[in-house]
């Protein structure tokens, strides 16, 4: 048993140190070009790119730096897919085959060497390639197309550069972005199964279904709310805007187009909710992940049932398979941990934020690796107001959200320090 513990611990230590090193080294270009005024700001930008957050410090990034920024995001997305899938809790722990379970308990190097590791990489590259080609076909300059591709496929965000500045007014850009964002938030295990022609699995995949329902219903609700409140009077336009932002927020990309800060509170609330749990597991999206919410809701439903039938023993089923109580406990504790970190963020940011809403959205946007938000952190505004300490805490939140908390918590653990 000891070796398993060791390997787990080592894996996490490896993951967190590699991330930290990458973020520190990656901050150099911002310092050298003089874009960032202090090492802390540069570090913030670097963390924001590697964690696929896409948060900015206010002014937009220009040509070369933007390419570098988006490239870091793409690398971060790739790293997450490979690193984290070796750490993720396995949902179908009893299934012998299948990508999702094959990673559990394996070492990082094994994952890299394994067929599934390659598969993740290939899927990621092919989604990016398809999007890039589509963008070029639409008539985008290769540089623009590349930047957009890198940021969208990794669900990053443009970091202060306006979407309208980069889409060059070419029709169809939005649609392609929507498609790629959806593709990169769907669990990559689904693609792997598709390649293996396991259509039955895909058909009954709970997370995929939940994602589809969530996306469609929230798009319709936001569309209706915007139409009724009169922010966007044209119904077709309202639908497009709602769809774009619902996808952008649920995938934690955080691309925004137009002034969403003036949207009604309802639309904002729905978007904020989506950013917390819109993305699927084993994808480049961040946040709590849909599968955890599904498990938590099922656990709550079971607890209702248990109150009336105290002696009934029920196990939770996901994708038709029972999951262990230990997994359920892990999921519940993850969500609670996430909520506590989010609240801690609200508290820390309240020292520098102008109002409650901004403190709230700074915290939710950073922990979810979203990047943009509402209030003073809306759309193209940045996080420069946070100050050095706030920025460092912001980096902590971004890394915690990206690395699913645990890898980052290790240094604080007594066993981790041994």
């Amino acid at each position, binding site marked *: 048993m000891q070796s398993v513990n060791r390997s787990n611990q080592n894996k996490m230590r490896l993951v967190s140190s590699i991330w930290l090193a990458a973020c520190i080294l990656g901050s150099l270009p911002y310092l050298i070009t003089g874009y960032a005024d202090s090492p802390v700001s540069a570090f913030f930008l670097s963390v924001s790119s590697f964690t696929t957050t896409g948060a900015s410090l206010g002014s937009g990034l220009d040509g070369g730096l933007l390419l570098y920024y988006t490239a870091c995001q793409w690398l971060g997305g790739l790293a997450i897919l490979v690193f984290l899938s070796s750490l993720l809790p396995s949902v179908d722990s009893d299934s012998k085959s299948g990508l999702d379970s094959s990673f559990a308990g394996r070492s990082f190097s094994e994952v890299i060497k394994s067929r599934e590791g390659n598969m993740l990489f290939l899927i990621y590259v092919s989604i990016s390639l398809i999007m890039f080609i589509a963008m070029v076909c639409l008539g985008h300059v290769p540089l623009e197309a590349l930047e957009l591709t890198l940021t969208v496929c990794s669900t990053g965000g443009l970091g202060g550069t306006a979407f309208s500045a980069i889409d060059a007014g070419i029709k169809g850009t939005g649609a392609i972005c929507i498609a790629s964002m959806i593709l990169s938030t769907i669990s990559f295990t689904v693609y792997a199964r598709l390649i293996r022609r396991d259509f039955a699995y895909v058909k009954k995949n709970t997370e995929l279904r939940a994602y589809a329902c969530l996306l469609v219903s929230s798009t319709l609700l936001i569309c209706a709310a915007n139409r009724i409140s009169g922010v966007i009077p044209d119904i077709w336009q309202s639908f497009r805007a709602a769809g774009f932002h619902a996808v952008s927020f649920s995938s934690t990309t955080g691309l925004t187009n137009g002034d969403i800060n003036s949207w009604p509170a309802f639309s904002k*609330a729905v978007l904020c909710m989506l950013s917390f749990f819109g993305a699927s597991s084993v994808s480049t999206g961040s946040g709590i992940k849909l599968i955890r919410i599904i498990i938590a809701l099922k656990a709550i439903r079971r607890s*209702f049932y248990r109150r009336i039938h105290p002696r009934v023993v029920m196990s939770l089923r996901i994708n038709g398979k029972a999951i262990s109580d230990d997994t359920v*406990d*892990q999921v519940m504790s993850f969500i609670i941990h996430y909520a506590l970190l989010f*609240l801690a963020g609200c508290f820390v940011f*309240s020292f520098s934020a102008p*109002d409650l*809403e901004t403190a709230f959205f700074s915290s939710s946007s950073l922990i979810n690796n979203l990047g943009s938000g509402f209030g003073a952190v809306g759309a193209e505004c940045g996080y420069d107001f946070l100050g050095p300490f706030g920025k460092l805490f912001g980096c902590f939140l971004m890394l915690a959200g990206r690395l699913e908390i645990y890898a980052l918590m290790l240094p604080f653990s007594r*066993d981790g320090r041994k």
Partner: protein
Amino acid sequence: MVLNKKLVIKVLCAVMALVGFLMLIPCAVSLIYGETVSARAFAVCAVPMIAAGYAAFRLTKAPDTNALGLRDGFFIVASAWFVLSLLGSLPFMISGTIPNVFDAFFETASGFTTTGASILPGVEDLPKGMLFWRSFTHWVGGMGILVLTIAILPALGIGGQKIMRAETTGPSMDKMTFTFNDTARSLYLIYSAMTVIEVVLLLISGMDLYDSLVYTFGTVGTGGFATKNDGLAGYAVSSQIIIAVFMMLAGINFNLYYLCLNKKAGQALKDPELKCYLGITGGSTLFIMVMLIISGQAAGIFDSFRLAYFQVTSILTTTGYSTFNFDLWPLPAKVVLMMLMFIGGCASSTGGGMKVIRVMMAFKIAWRGVQKRIHPSALAPVKIGGRIVPQDIMRSVSEFLILYLATLLFGTVLVSLEKVSLMTAFTSVLACFSNIGPGFEAVGPAMNFGFYSGATKLFLSVLMIAGRLELFTIFLMFTPAFWSKR
């Protein structure tokens, strides 16, 4: 589903008659102040309720069995609270003080659940009898109306333990060894003693009898209805401090007082939840005090201590009184208050919220997740005060916490359909759900909930009752499993 219908009806009748009797008290108050309209309204409600309740109680045949099923217990408690809030709102409507039915229901539900959220723009215009009734509902709701019913009418002879569990707050770590009727009665004894002491102290501090009674009801029940628009700002400093101390006392687990009465004070003082509760109170008071001094919003150290201590105890115990419009305070102080809104009082106190013990467990559960990730095969038990928390209690706590957060989120989305800012929607839901009363921004301490539509008021009222009964009792009524035959 098979409910023990006769027993349910019998209990509900008893509750109705009891509310009728309780209404005689504000009726008398109205008469003393010569408010004939209010007095008549109370009498018109009270007399038929007592008569009908008594008659129906007598006429309903004795139930075949006094056995109380699990569903009966939940159903009785859930329906009693709705019936209670509806009946309690009748005097407001009949007298024309609050003519709108949603408004009146909101105000009464807010009273019985000890929330203290109001839809009234100016409370000073209300007749004294009505204000008295409004605050008296806090006192009644604080300990639980069914606990009161059973304490008064042991003749009902029903299994109180189940009802008690559905109505008292917080997870219980130990099984109560003493019998139920004793518990209910001694809890009410402690509660009443606390009330009397506070009234006397407030009288000494220079408040008149009427105000002392009203504020005492609001304090020991952790309610928060006041008689002035600006809350307690206009009262003597000594009165404010007495109220703050008693709010703090009302947020403590009442079983600890019971232990003290049984000469086990040492054991009570060692309670880990109590230590944590006092620690939170002290820490946040200190923090807000410093924030107030830095921002220069209070004159001097004592003044800022007084403001901070009062507001911290008021929010932490989910009372909701204010001596100052805390919506104007610096943002970090407001965020700390917001977090206190989540926490709430101790288990088995009159306060609402998540309860201190659950928040303590939340941290431990979160930490356990990290340990389990490092050592997947480790047992890593959650310990509170050196004792291992059983797995099933830990699970039900984490389910409670997540359901709480989910309801908050869902409620915020629903309330945001109104034309309000997102933070107003959020704090409205938080303030109602945690039974606090005032929130921030448009529902801040200087504002009220009157601008919401009828549907939202009804929704918030249901949230108040759900929050008071710790979610599951009310939410169960909306699950198909509860109504299915199996």
